[in-house]
């Protein structure tokens, strides 16, 4: 475990060299932003709308007292969306989609000697491959989380209206009554940390792949499981530190 941690830290440090050619680095970063961000938007949208809808229905089911106003449902759904559901659920899904993709791409480059080719050319392969992915993740994943926050609340409003639990205006009134910028900032801090975990762990797993196609698959699996465990661990740490 300590060997892996040490190797991971050395790998991360090795990425931070001056890029050989800034123009090429920029175009790679934009390409990765498209892969990570735009490519993940449909799945993030679908999951967010349904999680928002289910949370609304389940919260309404649990709040049976006539003394509690219905707008509290909006309050609970919006707060829990920002604090936990949007960053954590979305990033667990992204660990599966983006993480596996990065690990298999880099792992395949390793076993086909493409990474060696970069090194022979005098290019810092870890920085050239990894840094654009990390920067793209740090830009795009928080953006996806902001979208997920909105869609979760949107999904809640739709579910509330379709099932007749409450009117959209009651929901919005509840959501707005307790909105604090701090709640959103917790969501963003989580999304930055999770974005770094997903992209760096997956690149690391792919970069140190040894063997053939089977090992590339194993690297993908390891990238997803380790990213998920680390996301949950840091979710707890951030919650404890910030709340």
């Amino acid at each position, binding site marked *: 475990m300590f060997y892996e941690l040490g190797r991971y830290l050395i790998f991360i440090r090795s990425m931070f060299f001056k890029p*050989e050619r800034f123009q090429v680095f920029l175009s790679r970063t934009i390409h990765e932003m498209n892969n990570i961000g735009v490519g993940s938007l449909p799945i993030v949208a679908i999951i967010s709308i349904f999680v928002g809808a289910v949370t609304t229905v389940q919260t309404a089911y649990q709040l049976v007292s006539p003394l509690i106003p219905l707008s509290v449902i909006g309050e609970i759904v919006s707060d829990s969306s920002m604090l936990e559901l949007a960053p954590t659920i979305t990033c667990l899904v992204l660990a599966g989609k983006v993480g596996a993709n990065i690990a298999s791409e880099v792992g395949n480059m390793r076993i086909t000697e493409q990474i060696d080719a970069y*090194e*022979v*050319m*005098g290019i810092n392969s870890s920085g050239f491959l990894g840094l654009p992915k990390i920067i793209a993740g740090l830009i795009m994943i928080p953006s996806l989380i902001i979208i997920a926050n909105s869609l979760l609340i949107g999904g809640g409003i739709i579910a509330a209206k379709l099932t007749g639990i409450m009117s959209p205006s009651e929901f919005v009134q509840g959501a707005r009554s307790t909105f604090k910028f701090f709640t959103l900032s917790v969501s963003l801090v989580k999304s930055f940390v999770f974005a770094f975990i997903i992209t760096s762990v997956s690149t690391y797993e792919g970069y140190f792949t040894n063997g053939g196609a089977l090992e590339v698959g194993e690297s993908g699996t390891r990238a997803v499981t380790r990213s998920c465990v680390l996301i949950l661990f840091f979710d707890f740490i951030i919650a404890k530190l910030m709340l």
Partner: protein
Amino acid sequence: MIELNHVNKSFNEKQVLFDISASFVPGKPNLIIGASGCGKSVLLKCMVGLMTPETGHIVYDGRDFVSLEYEKKKDIRRELGMLFQGTALFDSLTVQENIEFPLKMFSKMTPAERIDRVNFCLERVHLKDVNDKYPAEISGGMKKRVGIARAIVLDIKYLFCDEPNSGLDPITSRVIDELLEDITSEYQITTIINSHDMKTVYDIGEKIIFIFKGKKWWEGNRHEIDAVRKENKELDSFIKASQF
């Protein structure tokens, strides 16, 4: 000129290279031969900096590659080109983009100049109308030639080839051998080829180093090899096993 001085390399407890010292003939094809697993690929990887020997020196024109700092090693690496066994073409890039890649990274050429250079290199390796194809869409022999074109697109001094004929039919193998020989003499580069193809050895081996169980067992040239094989049991077995 490349010189190896007392190079040793091991993995964990297993030593794979034992005190290898040699020099290579500048401007000629030099061959490192030996059976699979004898350590010739490890030696080549040490020479290009993909692995670091435990002890010993690898000297490029008086510069000790092993002891240089990372940034200084880059200067030597810019003088190297390498053709990998599996070609190592970037599979997300087209043939043109693959060859253009080193130019984009290290030259100040304009896009038009880069395309001209790419087309010149493709013509040099006898390839036409493949600019927009992806590596997965071309044959093994064509991939090797694209690999050579990418290796020579910058003005290199040293060309390393790891088993350039592996996976190729005998006719295509000869085409690749001739191409490597022509490019070596035309650009006066020092070419170092890892091979266990004896036809290559007899055709282009101006300097041959035979590695046996991680040790330099014999060195000479293609004109001497037949004369010494009778006295060198291991070399003789290797040549016989290659059924030449």
